[in-house]
């Protein structure tokens, strides 16, 4: 592979990693609140279909994004009511949400058969060059000649990082995820924090889905996520619940997903079936490494997956 080919590949890896990044950030926020939401795939699909549908009707990219976020959050709301208020099992509820989201998008998508995203939206999400930054050799071409969504994902990752580690609310959120009883004793409203962040997480998953339907494919395709939601769940572990590491993880997985196409042409002597396995192998490897060197920083929030009963604290 020559340099241009590598730059082309890295540029494509960023695009391929962007839906993963949104979903991973959403799931990180959710899990930081102590809730394991396995419905990422479902919420992405809900966002994908709603964003596409509203985009098609309104021809307005802003409204389309809003619709995708609202749809993702609506899916998350179902999950939040069940797991926070009714204290249902989080794993089962999340799986149910995945199935529901798939059905919802299939049902809504029936009217969207063969529809292509309108020109106004295609135009709004066309790649553009960021002044100055886009002129840097290599780096500019890879990171700063992308579309609006990609820039939004950089920004979101940084904002989530600042939010979690540099603000008071972020600290409270982490307390809720680690030890809800202690947070409750410090007069933090556990339910409010859980609801707010589960919804926010769902909205980000919805955005990830909308990227696939509105920008990536831009035509309606049922089950457009094709398992990317599950990769995002794995990526949260890969990133050890850290939004900055999620950036690296998402682009790494995005790259691994497409590297097969790039090396098929140059006679690389490894079977493509082997390469197709890479993202999953890497996940297993990371799980092994993370569990071998247990540290405070790399372990999941202590309250993850456990429903909080105030009466039992």
């Amino acid at each position, binding site marked *: 592979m020559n340099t241009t080919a590598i730059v082309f*590949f890295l540029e494509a890896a960023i695009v391929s990693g962007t839906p993963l990044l949104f979903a991973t950030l959403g799931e990180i926020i959710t899990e930081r609140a102590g809730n394991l939401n396995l419905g990422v795939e479902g919420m992405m699909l809900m966002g994908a279909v709603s964003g596409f549908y509203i985009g098609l009707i309104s021809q307005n990219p802003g409204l389309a994004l809003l619709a995708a976020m609202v749809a993702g959050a609506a899916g998350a709301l179902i999950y939040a009511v069940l797991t926070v208020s009714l204290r249902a099992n989080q794993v089962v509820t999340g799986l149910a949400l995945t199935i529901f989201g798939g059905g919802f998008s299939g049902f809504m998508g029936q009217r969207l058969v063969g529809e292509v995203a309108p020109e106004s939206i295609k135009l709004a999400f066309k790649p553009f060059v960021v002044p100055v930054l886009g002129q840097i050799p290599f780096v500019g071409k890879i990171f700063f000649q992308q579309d609006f969504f990609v820039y939004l994902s950089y920004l979101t990752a940084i904002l989530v990082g600042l939010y979690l580690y540099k603000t008071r609310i972020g600290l409270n959120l982490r307390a809720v995820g680690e030890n809800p009883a202690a947070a409750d004793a410090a007069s933090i409203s556990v339910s409010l924090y859980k609801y707010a962040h589960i919804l926010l997480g769902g909205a980000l998953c919805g955005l990830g889905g909308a990227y696939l339907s509105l920008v990536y494919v831009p035509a309606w395709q049922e089950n457009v996520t094709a398992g990317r939601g599950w990769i995002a769940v794995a990526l949260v572990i890969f990133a050890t619940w850290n939004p900055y590491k999620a950036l690296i993880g998402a682009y790494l997985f995005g790259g691994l997903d*497409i590297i097969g*196409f790039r090396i098929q042409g140059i006679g690389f002597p490894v079977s493509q079936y082997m390469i197709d396995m890479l993202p999953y192998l890497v996940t297993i490897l990371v799980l092994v490494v993370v569990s071998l060197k247990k540290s405070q920083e790399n372990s999941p929030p202590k309250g993850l997956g456990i429903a909080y009963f105030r009466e039992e604290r």
Partner: protein
Amino acid sequence: MKRKASIFLVLLMVMALVVTGCGSAKPAGEAQDPVNEQPKVKVGFVYIGPVTDGGWTEAHENGRKYLVEKLGVETVIRENVPESSECEKVINDMVDQGCNVIFATSFGFMEYVEKAAQNYPDVKFLHCSGFKMADNMGVYFGRMYEPRYLSGVVAGLKTKTNKIGYVAAFEIPEVLRGINAFTMGVRSVNPKATVSVKWTHTWIDAPRAKEAAKALLNEGCDVLAQHQDAPGPQVAAEEKGVWSVGYNMDMTAIAPKAHLTSPVWNWGPYYVAQVQAVMDGTWKAENYWGGMNEGIINLSPLTENAPEGAQEAVDKAKTAILSGENKIWTGPIKDNTGVERVPAGVTLTDEQLTSMDFNWLVEGVIGKVE
């Protein structure tokens, strides 16, 4: 209070079930009216993807609609069936629902259909694109390589860089026949052109197909063809401002500025003929492999993006194929490693074309079979 409310809710749900149960029981009773002389036929369709995929499954679904319109038979469909033991469950379920003719429309369903055919000797199974048969299991497919060859002629005339890309799903004979015929079509009008193949190992993942297409475009290809159920490569070509050849259905709407033409399926007449044969009691398991002359496949009309002279070239090639003058698989044919696969004067038989030994790529293809 809460308990009363929940008991009430449960009662309400039970009532709802009972009522809907009664509702659906009635028409079923009517349907068994002895007035109908012909044996009652209920047809099941097992689909690999959603009926809205804009490609393969939608083409079958159009065939099913045509069948219902023509014969008015009752049909059952199941979408998104994976090529795993799940397929067996779906078939069992369809038989339980009373289906006595079942069409399974993906290659990977083969072994499950075969098993089901043994378990249910009274049910007629028709498996699309496979090669295993039984007394109650027929095989059907179309000689898609014929319109593929024609689409290759269009692509070969269109390319400026003499590099054509081909996004393909799996290394199975069906796909390989398509690539090889397409490439021979390309080189019949443009001997300098090459066809680069990328394998996606998925039929339905549109973003993945688009990624493969982007990789081809980065390599300098200016016409993309695809053997994918989803139209990802069409979109990639449109965005890059180059050209594309579709598949399954006319894909002009997806990529109006890029699309040249598509090899397309037309299953309807075949489905009607088969179900009619079952109704008449004349059905026999057969290996049906229809060509362009039988209308099960065709090339969609060339769009205005097609190059000048393409229509004439296609017409000429089509006439030659229909008349049997061009059998496509007549030697000498070399593969892309230089080995002679078909000696001069020999034509590959249908058996050779459909066997798993058909695992080579013709001269002019850049890529390999894993």
